[in-house]
């Protein structure tokens, strides 16, 4: 059996990759991809804690339920986020986050 620690370490790596993309990428879609990576890392953790955290994994299913909710909400988030990006692209002809500074004082 692979130890729980390794799953968590893997999730940490994926999360850091996502964080890097979200922090440094110019393109809004690339930032969104980073956010998806982070959500997935969280999901790995949730499922790992479900598997290794309880003596009755058949009944105590909160980890799985939450990861399913995260998947569903990530869907809603991606739908709205990408629609925003498309809408911004249509009016400003750019999806570069650096150039989208209308709100700057």
């Amino acid at each position, binding site marked *: 059996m*692979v130890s729980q620690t390794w799953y968590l370490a893997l999730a940490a*790596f994926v999360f850091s990759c996502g964080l890097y993309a979200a922090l440094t*990428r*110019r393109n809004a879609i690339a930032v969104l991809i980073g956010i998806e990576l982070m959500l997935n890392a969280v999901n790995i953790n949730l499922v790992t804690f*479900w598997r290794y955290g309880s003596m009755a994994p*058949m009944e105590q299913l909160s980890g799985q339920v939450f990861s399913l909710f995260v998947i569903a909400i990530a869907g809603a988030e991606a739908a709205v986020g990408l629609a925003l990006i498309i809408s911004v692209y249509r009016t400003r002809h750019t999806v570069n986050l650096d150039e989208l500074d209308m709100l700057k004082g």
Partner: protein
Amino acid sequence: MSLPEMSALFPTLQEVIFVLFALLIAVTSLIAAMAPNLFHNALGLVATLFGIAGIYFMLEAEFVGVSQILVYIGAIATLITFAIMLTRGMMFGRTSAMNRQGLAGAIISGLFFVVLLGIVFQVPWPNVVADITDGEALIANLGALFVSTYLLPFELLALLLLVALTGALLLARDR
């Protein structure tokens, strides 16, 4: 060969498979985060999602694994690709793919990774493993939980999806 010896073969196989999946995820998530070409980012994301689905199957969360493939790869990744094509003018950009915080971002996420690793290896996790006897009953329990304990989130989710659909529709429509 005695029985314990034989069963000792199986865990090692599982570890090998885990390492393979972990390598796949590590490489492809780096591609997803760093490749300059946006479409390659999306493909890297898809491969990462596949690897993570494999991890779910290894953790015996089969329903989460299949939902991952269905929703993430089947729908979200496709949607991202569509959005990439719709905003294609930016794909072969004259500017670099990174913003000015490139170095700072790398340092921050690197530090973050180190801190996380430290926590992961320091904390004494419970690490109890109980056998899952009937996978089908587990999925049935999951379904029963949605409409009993998690009834409110379940219904709210339906509403959220409806609202997201309407909002995204208004935003993305050609006018």
